[in-house]
């Protein structure tokens, strides 16, 4: 995955809710998404300019999971974001 393509869109607003979860709004399509804790971690990581590898490390540490498992989860979340055109 090329991190330079993974810039959170300006048309997307994310706000935290219920502990680590969040709500995401695509202002262009007016679609709303409920983000689980992992998805929030990924989105916030991308917003702060982290690479996918750094986010995988964060997930590994936060949830005490194997790096392979974390990498798979992060990739799936990023692909979901891409499919909904949530990046620039």
């Amino acid at each position: 995955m090329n991190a330079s393509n993974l810039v959170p869109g300006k048309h997307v607003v994310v706000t935290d809710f219920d502990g680590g979860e969040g709500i995401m709004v695509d202002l262009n399509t007016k679609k709303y998404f409920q983000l689980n804790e992992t998805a929030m971690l990924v989105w916030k990581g991308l917003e702060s300019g982290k690479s996918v590898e750094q986010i995988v490390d964060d997930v590994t540490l936060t949830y005490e999971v194997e790096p392979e498992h974390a990498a798979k989860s992060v990739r799936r979340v990023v692909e979901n974001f891409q499919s909904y055109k949530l990046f620039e």
Partner: protein
Amino acid sequence: MVSLSSDLTKYSLNTSDDVLSLRGWLPVDAVVVDGRPGLRWMDLADVQFSEPFFSQTIKRAITAKPDRGQRFTEFDALLQVEKVVESVAPTGFIFHSSRCGSTLVANTCKALSGSIVISEATAIDKLIARFITDTSVGDLREKLYSVFLRSLVRVLGQQRAGDEQHLFVKFSCCSVVQLERIRRIWPEVPWLFMYRDPVETIVSNLTTVPEWLADEDNRVLGALAGTTSVEVSKMSREELCARTLGNFYSTVESLASDNCMLLNYNQLSLAVILQIIRFFRVELEANEVATITATSKLYSKDVSSGQNFIPDSISKRTQASNLVRQMAAEWCAGPYNALEAKRALVNRES
């Protein structure tokens, strides 16, 4: 909701400048424009909330400046605007069962320096009503409206003068039925619930019928009374009011915990009012005590007139019809007594 498509057009927040341009503007109503639910915003940068109710402040602001700027946005604009304004975190919430002295307490909070008091803001009430009419437990819209409500309070609680330190929100009585959801959004914020003898409360509501009791949406009335919309359509106004009060008492009794204070109208005194302020974790200055002392003697819903408060419990009881007494006994007495018992317990703990 009122459709205002004729005088409002949708304002889109496409750029960061668009978002920044709404600083100092406040959502004054939840409306539907061209079939889209959203918010009516008003330029209130120069306006202080000095009246007992939010709607009175808006009326004054429009009277003083009829061409005041107004815009319509969808609800999601709140999520953008809250990120560009400095807000005061909620200090305390005031809930009540109507006609029970809560406006006096809200006015007291206004007497504190650096305080913002949002008293029964229409946009908050209508957004909370959407939990009844537009969501199911656990669905995305429920979470979405919770997020919007939190953002709405942040935007209404923005620092416009720069020295604000306290934010008090007085909810309308109807919000009591959504207390659990509201508590979930702000679990740490101390809250006060004020109530009064049910016969006196029903008499007051039947004498001057409030908007909520005349609501034509039976889904809302059903939720308030803790029953179905079909049942509500068959009820007398006395029964509807009694069942609603009974539902308020039961709801609060079941949710009252260590960060709440329960207050019966018959306990109201200057000493108790000062105790409420301390319960909200606010330290009082000597000049604030003097202002509160003066405020607490005034008729709470019209502080500008200087009219003094006159206790009216006896006259209210005298006016009560047999039907009012019967409905209060049937629907309110049990929950009211349970709440009184809980008050003794909760207030001792807090």
